[in-house]
């Protein structure tokens, strides 16, 4: 294990923050306190953190509709994010974007995306900037198992391969696209597709933070060194449904239980680091409590914050009114 104590703490902090953030959104949404459509990342935390801990602030990511975890892992402010979800004026996008369009370019977060497969083509561009300017940065594009079939993904893998771009494609395969199983919708194998488009391709256990981290480290270092793009096929699972409101009737009770109990990346991390004597249980619990407090505060602040007004409707466009 190459991570030092500080890094291990950071990893757990990040995963806890993601967990607390989306758990809180789950409850707020159920209580009708939050507008719009929200897609939660609970259960997939090791992927975002395992990848993003290998990135620096100038590296970039493009996310999906299930974007809160990626945002947090890339360093976006959770209070500004929460305000955005409530549509408040000092939300991270001024309330104009909402959950599906959270972005913070200053943190290298190029946006969640309401279009399945929308992000990876954009990642090509960031990677092209780095290649052109010779900056040794990388850009990472996330997408789901459902998205893996979308033509934009194949095109992006091919383009990255042809131009040898420092682009990493991360397929977060949680087994479902809405209510449809990967087994049904994916012809052939996602891993083979990466290879068939010329990418260095790896399958990763997404419940295991350390496996994600190590594999990501390897492909990201290669990309920084001009060795070209890669695909990570991360096998994971999500606790909640597709979006809030989904009754998840397409999964069995047993599967829901298994995901919650046996495939929780936080539990697994905790077990591994305590068993190996790397971190102590009270340290970890302290982190959990801090995350809880931070998110509670973000919600309180968000509820108190102001909505945008008619003055804000017509800004951020080139048309004069």
């Amino acid at each position, binding site marked *: 294990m190459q991570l030092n104590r500080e890094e291990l703490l950071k990893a757990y902090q990040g995963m806890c923050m993601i967990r607390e953030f989306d758990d809180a959104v789950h409850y707020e949404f159920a209580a009708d306190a939050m507008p719009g459509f929200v897609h939660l990342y609970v259960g997939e935390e090791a992927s975002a953190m395992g990848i993003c801990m290998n990135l620096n602030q100038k590296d970039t990511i493009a996310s999906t509709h299930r974007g809160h975890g990626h945002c947090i892992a890339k360093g976006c402010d959770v209070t500004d994010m929460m305000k955005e979800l409530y549509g408040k004026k000092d939300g991270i996008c001024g309330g104009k974007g909402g959950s599906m369009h959270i972005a913070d370019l200053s943190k290298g977060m190029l946006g969640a995306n309401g279009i399945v497969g929308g992000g990876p083509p954009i990642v090509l561009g960031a990677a092209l900037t780095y290649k052109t300017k010779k900056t040794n940065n990388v850009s990472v594009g996330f997408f789901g198992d459902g998205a893996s079939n979308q033509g934009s993904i194949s095109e992006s893998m091919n383009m990255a391969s042809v131009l040898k771009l420092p682009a990493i494609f991360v397929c977060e395969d949680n087994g479902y696209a809405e209510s449809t199983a990967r087994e049904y919708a994916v012809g052939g194998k996602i891993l083979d597709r990466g290879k068939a488009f010329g990418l260095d391709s790896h399958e990763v256990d997404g419940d295991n933070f350390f496996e994600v981290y190590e594999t990501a480290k390897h492909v990201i270092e290669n990309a920084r060194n001009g060795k070209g793009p890669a695909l990570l096929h991360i096998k994971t699972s999500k606790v909640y449904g597709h979006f809030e409101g989904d009754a998840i009737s397409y999964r069995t009770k047993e599967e829901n239980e298994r995901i919650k109990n046996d495939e929780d990346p936080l539990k697994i991390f905790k077990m591994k680091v305590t068993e190996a004597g790397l971190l102590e249980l009270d340290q970890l619990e302290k982190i959990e409590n801090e995350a809880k407090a931070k998110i509670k505060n973000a919600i309180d602040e968000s509820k108190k914050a102001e*909505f945008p007004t008619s003055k804000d409707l017509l800004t951020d466009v080139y048309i004069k009114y």
Partner: protein
Amino acid sequence: MSLKTYREAINEALLQEMQKDKNVVVIGEDVAGGAGTNGEQDAWGGVLGVTKGLLKHFGRERIIDTPITETAIMGMASGAALTGLRPVAELMFVDFMGVCFDQILNQTAKFRYMFGGKAVTPLTIRTMYGGGLRAASQHSQCLYPMFTHVPGIKVVLPSNPYDAKGLLIQSIRDNDPVIFMEHKNLYDTSGDVPDESYTIPFGEANFTREGKDITFIAMGQTVEICNKVADTLKKEGKTSTVLDLRTLSPLDEDSILEAAEETGKVVIVDESYPRCNIATDISALICQNSFDSLKAGIKMVTPPHTPVPFSPPLEDLYLPSEEKVINTAREIL
């Protein structure tokens, strides 16, 4: 006849046409749901439940769940239409047209003309559009002006449950490609709908109010806004004509010109982006053909030229409203 929601009316149209004609198949993402899972089949019936229940009648051979590949979906549907099926394909949100537009713009819409009249493409594309659900910039657009711009595809926008059923059955039976656009904010509205099968012909707009002082032209969700404005104005002693276009292409030019000429004062209310939209299209048509009957410039009520904002108060400010329509009407009354 019974009270049905817009959602139920659409579902019933599909059910009845599928019972009648075994060449009708439904194609789309999660139109049944649960494919390949160990859980409930028909788990979703469409993302907002519009196709729910069809699976048990027709099975997976006719209610066809697909991967998230809209180009393949639209291509498959139009190829199926070319070769003897009568598919109803779903583009979940019209906002997603950008990932599959070529199959509509350059393929299915052009087959008939480009192949010298030999192709018949009885394809219906069902899609959701419109704002009001806080669904933000990529899930709230109207975009029907873009489809209306394209020769070869018919554009249908029911504003109520009765029209939804009749127009959908007509769409399925029609031999040209049709995009059937469902306003997602209307799904829970209800109205009287015959239980038996019926069609409403294309190119026939519907007068929902008839009056002498001002004409409102509307479509989809804006029809109800205009009806309410007409009712308010009536209390003030002014009578209004309200015309629901129902199909944007083909367009009922005769009724539009008649409605405009009767009052000489026209307000067009369109929820889509303001440039090159239906409001401008209708305004230009009237101005070119009925200029001498006009008593005032034709007014348009539309959103501003920006993406749809997420924040609820901003979205409310963004969309056409009774208040905006009535204020605009007063400018020329």
